């Protein structure tokens, strides 16, 4: 057990000062803005919770919230099972698998504004490899004006970008399983699914929690990539929460933008809270299981 010593706060001073400057002060500023009507920054007047009321009752907010939730669900629904499956496969592939692990990590280091540039040139029907192939096959791929094509492009691009994160973490968890577990399961005649459910899944749950959390918040608030692909179109079909917020800031509607920002912040923090509680419960039940 670690000793209790409140002087440890002294060691936190540099970190606290930094976080106060770049995190806490801006957050309090947003909170303050969100209760004001602001045209110029030197002339603000108090409006109370008016912005919040208009957001909560706005159909446009409900629609973009639904789109963001759907996008997160699609991203997680595709990337999580696919990432685990790839990790299981790479684990069996030995040395080649370790090299492939480095390859799937490559998209993680591509700057975010380059990713849509790369994908748009890939699906360009005149010069892109995939675009030319689809044209040759007679597929009329039109991400500009067909809503579900825009969605498909976004989900595939996001999967390309983030699959590596799921794979790396699942791989790390899986590679720590002692071979004796699998041998024992084989003797007991366990099916492939049973081995996954009772041996492999528990080993990667901890890593999967952080993957789900990071993937949820990043896909829920997708901005750079979605904006570059179709700027929220066609016809608002991919206007996610953050794109709507970007519009507000560009329109100099700071009070309303701040209230939107606070609402998103609260949604994200609520999700984090749920995750932390779930992680704690899992840890506690694991400890009880060992005792």
């Amino acid at each position, binding site marked *: 057990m670690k000793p209790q010593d409140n002087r440890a706060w002294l060691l936190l001073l540099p970190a606290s000062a930094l976080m106060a400057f770049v995190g806490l002060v801006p957050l309090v500023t947003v909170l303050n803005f969100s209760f004001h009507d602001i045209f110029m920054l030197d002339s603000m007047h108090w409006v109370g919770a008016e912005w919040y009321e208009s957001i909560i009752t706005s159909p446009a907010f409900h629609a973009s919230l639904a789109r963001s939730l759907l996008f997160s669900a699609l991203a997680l629904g595709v990337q999580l099972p696919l990432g685990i499956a790839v990790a299981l496969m790479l684990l069996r592939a030995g040395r080649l698998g370790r090299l492939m692990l480095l390859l799937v990590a490559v998209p993680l280091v591509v700057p*975010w504004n380059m990713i849509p540039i790369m994908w748009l040139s890939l699906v360009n029907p005149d010069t892109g490899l995939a675009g030319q192939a689809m044209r040759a096959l007679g597929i009329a791929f039109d991400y500009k004006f067909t809503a579900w094509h825009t969605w498909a492009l976004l989900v595939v691009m996001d999967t390309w970008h983030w699959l590596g994160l799921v794979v790396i973490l699942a791989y790390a968890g899986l590679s720590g399983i002692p071979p004796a577990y699998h041998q024992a399961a084989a003797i007991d005649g366990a099916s492939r699914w049973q081995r996954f459910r009772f041996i492999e899944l528990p080993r990667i749950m901890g890593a999967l929690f952080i993957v789900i959390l990071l993937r949820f918040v990043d896909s829920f608030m997708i901005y750079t990539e979605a904006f570059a692909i179709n700027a929220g179109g066609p016809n608002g079909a991919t206007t996610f929460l953050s794109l709507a917020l970007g519009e507000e800031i560009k329109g100099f509607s700071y009070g309303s933008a701040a209230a939107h920002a606070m609402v998103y912040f609260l949604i994200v923090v609520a999700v984090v809270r749920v995750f932390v509680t779930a992680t704690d419960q899992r840890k506690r039940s694991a400890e009880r299981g060992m005792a």
Partner: protein
Amino acid sequence: MIRRIPTALALVALAGFILLPLAQTILLSFTATLPHDGVTEGEISLINYRNIFASPALVDSLRNSLVYVLLNVALCLIAGLPAAYAFARYRFVGDRHFLFLMLAFRVTPPVVLSLPIFILFAQFGLVNSPVGIALVHCLFNLPIAIWILESFIAAVPREFDETAFLDGHSLPGFFLRHLIPAIAPGIGVAAFFCFVFSWVEVVFARILTVTDGKPITMAINALFTFQTDFGLVMAMTIFSLLPGLAMIWFVRNHIARGFVIRT
């Protein structure tokens, strides 16, 4: 043995999926996409790479990117190491709340804080300089540095500290001479993740560089005009990938240690 063939096919499909956009980018980076002196459009050439070094704005952007990222990594390690030590070795009032706050800031979407950050940084003269970007990226990198370093410090037995203190080492002396060498791989992993997350971020980098101090990402955005030289864009994209690729190679054996969630 029968299972080998589907696995091989799946591996090839996966490699193809990951490599396809990269192949497209490399291909275009070696293609002249606009007519230049002595090179016709569509020709395979090194013209795009030569044009990068002919443009002072692009060369500056390479320097700006490296300066702000290295500064950010240094800040995160210097502020993160004592904090990580505190969490690894002691319990104290509010420790769990502090960690929750760190997690909340780590996942706060940059677009939420972009406006007040701009106003705040403008008052301190931190706009248009790599220092501003280095500071603001601590918002999501410092929590990561603390988590990673904490998990590596916690793996070092407590007796290690006590022996050093009995030998008469002060806390800073212990950090420099004993702790840092003992957790060198952890420092490397923390530096890797800070480097990568800072290198790829664009929302803060955009709002904090209005006229000057633009990193690679923003220099590429500035290349988009009514007649964009896509070959040049792709050549710059390839350049922007190289440091990240080098980092992946350096930390390949430790890469998964970074994501042990601490609350």
